């Protein structure tokens, strides 16, 4: 009895608690998928589509990864309501682009995106450009206290509409391309008049502190489609709740068939407060 007792006591005090073990996925490995992202707007001068591959559990993604590993040999086509097809051309570090002169982005029009790669991957999507933008005359900005504003505007129409606020600070130097510093906020609303309380610390600071040194600031109110709203909402919320033990997992929205990412549309109203 005694040797057994001593052996057990040694085991008790030498046993560790948790271990980790790699899971061998074997034939459960999932195929790679296309990752496609594109936002179109009647007010933008270019249309851009980025195409990449993502592989299941095999490749590390860095949070600052933007334009590396872009797929450069895909056939990317945007087609409009009239079935007219607009091919895009690849530009290194940017993606597939075309000027808005080549692809007219019109309100209330539906656009289809098709991406094919030489090794047989095919993904597609579509989106509809919101019919109206926000009427600037309905926008009211009221300062509540230092750096805090109430911002409201009329809904563009009855029914559910989605909006995005973009605070854009642009640094302008002579003979240099503009450098952008921006923040983005989004809201989903119903068919009531908007009254959104926002904190605009950056805008306030930027306008007061930097305008004299070559900065310009503006505020965009964008009427977006559901794809824009839902992708942006789920993308940022998943990132915010990543380490929250009280939070349920949140899948990031996609409207790309056979892939990930988003093909979305927005219609901007640009304000200079």
């Amino acid at each position, binding site marked *: 009895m005694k040797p*057994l*007792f001593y052996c*057990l006591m040694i*085991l*008790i005090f030498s*046993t560790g608690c*948790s*271990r*980790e*073990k*790699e*899971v061998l996925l074997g034939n459960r490995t*999932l195929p790679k*998928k296309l*990752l496609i*992202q594109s*936002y179109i707007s009647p007010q*933008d001068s*270019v249309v*851009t589509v*980025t195409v990449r591959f*993502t592989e*299941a*559990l*095999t*490749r*590390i*993604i860095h*949070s600052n*990864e*933007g*334009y590396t590993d872009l797929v450069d040999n895909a056939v990317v086509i945007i087609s409009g309501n009239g079935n007219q097809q607009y091919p895009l051309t690849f530009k290194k*570090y940017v*993606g597939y*682009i075309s000027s808005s002169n080549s692809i007219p982005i019109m309100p209330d029009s539906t656009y289809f995106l098709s991406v094919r790669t030489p090794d047989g991957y095919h993904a597609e999507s579509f989106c509809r450009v919101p019919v109206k933008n926000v009427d600037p005359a309905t926008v009211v900005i009221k300062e509540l206290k230092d750096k805090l504003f109430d911002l409201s505007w009329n809904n563009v129409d009855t029914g559910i509409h989605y909006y995005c606020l973009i605070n854009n600070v642009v640094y302008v130097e002579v003979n240099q391309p503009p450098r*952008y510093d*921006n923040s*983005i*906020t989004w*809201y989903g609303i119903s068919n009531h008049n908007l009254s959104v*309380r*926002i*904190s605009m610390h950056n805008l306030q600071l930027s306008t007061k502190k930097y305008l004299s040194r070559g900065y310009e600031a503006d505020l965009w109110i964008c009427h977006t489609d559901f794809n824009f709203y839902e992708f*942006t909402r*789920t*993308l*940022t919320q998943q*990132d915010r*709740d990543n380490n929250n*033990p*009280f*939070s*349920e*997992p*949140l*899948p*990031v929205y996609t409207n790309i068939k056979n892939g*990930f990412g988003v093909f*979305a549309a*927005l219609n901007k109203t640009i304000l200079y407060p």
Partner: protein
Amino acid sequence: MIGALLLFNSSIGQQRKILQGYVKEVKSGETLQGASISVGSENYLTNNYGFFSVKLPESDSVKMLVSHAGYSPVEIMIGSLPKFSNFLTIELSPTEDLLSEVTIKKKQNKISHEVQMSKVQITPQQIRDMPVLLGEKDVLKALQLFPGVQKPREGSAALYVRGGGQDQNLIILDEAPVYNVYHLFGFFSVFNNDALSNIELIKGGFPARYGGRLSSVLDIQMRDGSKDEVKGTAGIGLVSSNLTIEGPVKKEKSSFIFSGRRTYADLFLVPLTGQSASFYDVNGKINFELNPRNKIFYSMYAGRDGFSRKEKSGTDKDHQGFNWGNQTATFRWNHIFKRGIFLNSSLIYSNYHFKVFDASIRNNKKYFLQYNSSIKDIGVKSAIDFSLGKNNQLKAGLLVTRHLFAPNAMVFTDEQIDSVKKEKNQIETFEGAAFIENDINLNTNLKLNAGLRYSAFSTKDKFYSGFEPRLSWLYKLNNNLSIKASFASMNQYIHLLSNSGIGLPTDLWVPVTEKTKPQQSTQYALGIAKDFKNGNALTIEGYFKNMKNIIAYKNGADFLLLSTGSGSGQDLRPVSWENNITVGKGWSYGAELLFQKKQGRLTGWIGYTLSWTFNQFDSLNNGKSFYARYDRRHDISIVGILKIKENKTLSATWVFGTGNALNIPLYEYAGSLYNPSGTGLAYTFVVNDFGERNSFRGAVYHRLDISMQFYKKKRKNRVRTWELGLYNAYNKANPFYYYTNRSVGSDTRKLYYTTLFPIIPSIKYQLKF
């Protein structure tokens, strides 16, 4: 051994036709639930309070056989009973006197004669004999070893019965519902085995007297305490120590029992790590036999868990943690009317509360967030139980409960932004039910338990009600083989919002509302029951269960029900739980096999479950159906308890289960926001994609546990027990949770799982005095 002690009260009644009374354990006076009483070809069972009422035949030559698992049977000639007595107390002797019995032969109740199907009964002694994690004997973990009952993950004491969720189990301790039955994040249950007498789990074919939950009823009764002498049990284990004291208040008329447990890991952890995890629980019961026809009981339970973490750096301080606990109390009156009607009336109280807090001081500015959730019940229940004849037993009753929910109360202070908020939202509701059920022997081969329950629930804005028909049916093919079938319709008026993460005790009970309707289920079961000549038994059952209006958190919902809005902490506010949930449906079907070896030196059972469980919610998984988290295709349990010698018991359990259906990140990619600069993409986030909900199947689970118990009889009838145990004896690395991570030195991401318990030895000392 003592055979029986018969106590007559001849002053009651006239010439007997109906015989009534109690079946009790000799000496201790504990009433025995489910004892079998055979009178000629008729079989009766004692009710939950050990009471029986049987119709006697005219002939005096007929024998009455009284038996119960673990007790020596008693045979009584009807003719030997006094003619003018109709009240009888029958006392049975336990056959498990450890130091005098080696080969145990017990008269068992025949499973093929019981109309109730889908039932599991286990005794505290069986639980004591079984090996378990760190030597902590646990009712719920013992029940997980039966078919149809599944555990969610390694170490957890939670029960998932026939595809139902945790909230769908009605768990009652002396008639009081216990809302959170877990200690230490679910690794142990709140039930102290030393204080318990009867443990019965019903998985389907629910009698009409039970209701309020969809999937199971776990009816646990506390012991009354010895009416004969003061005695007790003290134990020291690796996790906790326990003490139980019981004895007569007035010999043979009144008794008490008090039992308590406490962990002590926090005593060492706090000074060393600043972290604390602890629990305690106490059970108490006192009863008075006012006269043979009137008894009163008072029982209570109180338990509390705490987990906290403290940190200090200069003048900055942090303190975070959780507290949760239950309190229950039951005052019960049993009365027997002259015509053999048994009345049980109870006043019931139950309270569950949960608190999470986060307090800190930074630069001499205080930050404090406290979040509370609770449910308080107070109810009355009254039921009668009487015989309408030798083939007809009737039960009927009423109950009313007031629930007071406080799903999200918050206190928030942040001196940095000069913000103070207090929010409390209480919801008062009433739940009521009336039931009637009838046990009928239509002929010698055909038995029915037919019942009807009417349940109702009232909130401030809404009233729900519904009829719940129940039917259990038995047809004897021969004396040892029967076919059984059942149908049960159930309504559930309260919901549990439970986090699907790694097991924080984030239980939040909420009532039905106008938007969130009652959960409803219908269950059909069909099976056979076979008793073998040597006392062994086999049951095979198939079932189909359909569930409506079940709820789940929406994707991304936060349990704390707090919204931070778009700005800073100034916008912190509670949000409605109704906006955080989605309503859907579920269905489960499968087959269960249970073979029990009940006699001899080796006892135990083999259980096998084959099952499928699905859920469907319009706003989850794009509206497509998916496997429930607790879907498990195969589940096997083998339990063996071997009496090696009169003072040594060896026991082992082996479990095997298909891996859980999990929601893990299968893909990772960089997702970018819209870039207002016009070209390219703006800020990029790393995105985890989970694929189809619960589409990943975890690794299979299997584990062997062994324990050896050494008994020694000491002076003054004291018995000491040393128990040595091995949990996970062959050191299987079973998954606890999955995560993805980059492998060291390479640019690839892989899937890993963490195991929680390797081989773990345990030692426990117990003294009965």
